[in-house]
C-alpha cells in the first residue's frame, strides 16, 4: 500500500457522494467518537517578502480537520485523522474514517483500498496534465543571450 501521507490527498480526488456513501455504509454499526472537535475554517498563508523579510499574508484557504476514534461492532478500535483543503467538516470526518480503516485494516478496508487506488490514478492524471500544460508554455530564454551579444558588438 502507498504511504499513509498520500491517502487523504488521493481519496479527496473522488466524487464526494462516492466517498460519503462508502463511509456511511462502513460506519453504520460502528461507534465513531471525536478525539478533537471537528472544525472547518480558513487558514492564512503567511510568507516573508523578499525585500525586507517581513511577514505578510498572501491569502487564505479553506481547511477542515477531524480526528476520530472508531470502535467496530466486533470490538476493534482505531484512530484516524485528516486535514483537507475544504470547507466541509463532513469531508474531513469521512477522510479521517478512511484513514482509520486503512491504517488498521478494519472491516471494509478492501473497498477503501479500491477507492484509494482510483484516487491515486486520478491524481496522477492531473499531475500529467499539468506537466503537459507547463511544457507547452515553457519559454526558451537562451535566445535572449544571442540578442544581447549583438547589441554589445554594435
Amino acid at each position, binding site marked *: 500500500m502507498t504511504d499513509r501521507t498520500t491517502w487523504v490527498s488521493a481519496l479527496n480526488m473522488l466524487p464526494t457522494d462516492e466517498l460519503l456513501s462508502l*463511509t*456511511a455504509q462502513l*460506519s453504520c454499526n460502528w461507534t*465513531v*467518537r*471525536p*478525539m*478533537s*472537535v*471537528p472544525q472547518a475554517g480558513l487558514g492564512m498563508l503567511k510568507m516573508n517578502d523578499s525585500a525586507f523579510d517581513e511577514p505578510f499574508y498572501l491569502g487564505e484557504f479553506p481547511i477542515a480537520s*477531524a*480526528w*476520530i476514534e472508531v470502535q467496530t461492532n466486533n470490538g476493534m478500535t482505531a484512530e484516524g485523522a485528516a486535514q483537507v483543503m475544504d470547507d466541509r467538516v*463532513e469531508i474531513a*470526518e*469521512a477522510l479521517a*474514517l478512511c484513514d482509520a480503516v486503512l491504517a488498521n485494516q478494519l472491516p471494509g478496508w478492501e473497498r477503501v483500498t479500491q477507492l484509494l487506488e482510483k484516487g491515486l490514478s486520478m491524481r496522477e492524471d492531473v499531475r500529467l496534465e499539468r506537466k503537459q500544460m507547463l511544457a507547452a508554455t515553457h519559454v526558451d530564454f537562451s535566445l535572449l543571450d544571442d540578442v544581447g551579444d549583438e547589441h554589445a558588438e554594435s
Partner: protein
Amino acid sequence: MLNLDPIWLPAVQQIHFRQLLDAMARPGKCHLLDSVPGDGPVVLSLLATLLDADVTLADPYNLLRPGDWSMLQVKSCPTERADYVLCDARQLPEFLPKLGTLPCPDQSATLILIVSQLGQGEMSLKLSGPGIADTVKLQVKGLDQQWLSNREVWVRAFPLGVDLILIDDKQVAALPRTTRVEIL
C-alpha cells in the same frame, strides 16, 4: 457522521458565555447551565466555552480525563503561569496564581472552583461591591475557607488579582476580584 455532545456546539457555547458574562456582572447570582455533558465532568461545559488553543490551563488536582485535553485543544501549563486553573474547592489551595501586572491586570488567572453545591450549604457568604445593589447572600457547600482567605490576599492590590468561577453539578456563579466577601 459524528454526534457531538451539545457542549461543543457554538450555539450552546454562546448561551454559556452569556451566562458567564451575567454571572461576572452580577456576582453571587447562580445560573443554571443550559447543557451539561452526557459523558464527563460538568465543568467541561464551562471549559468548552472558555478555552481554546490560545490560552493555557492548569489542572493541579487532576480533575480532567486525558481525552478531555484533546477536545478542549488547550495547552497545559504550570499552575503559576496558567490563564485558567481548575481547582477542587474542597482541597486546600497550594499555589500562587498569576495576578497580572499594573500595565496588564487582565493577564491574571481565572480560577474555576468545583464546589459540592451552590445556593445551599453550611457556608454563608455576604457579598457586596460592583454589580450588587446592597449585599447579597450566597450559600456554598464544599468550599474550603482557605480559598477565600487566599483570595483576600490575591485581590488586595487591585487591579491585580484573580477572578473566581464557582461551579457545582448544574449551576455556575462568579466572584470577580472587585467583590467583597464576608463569611457569616
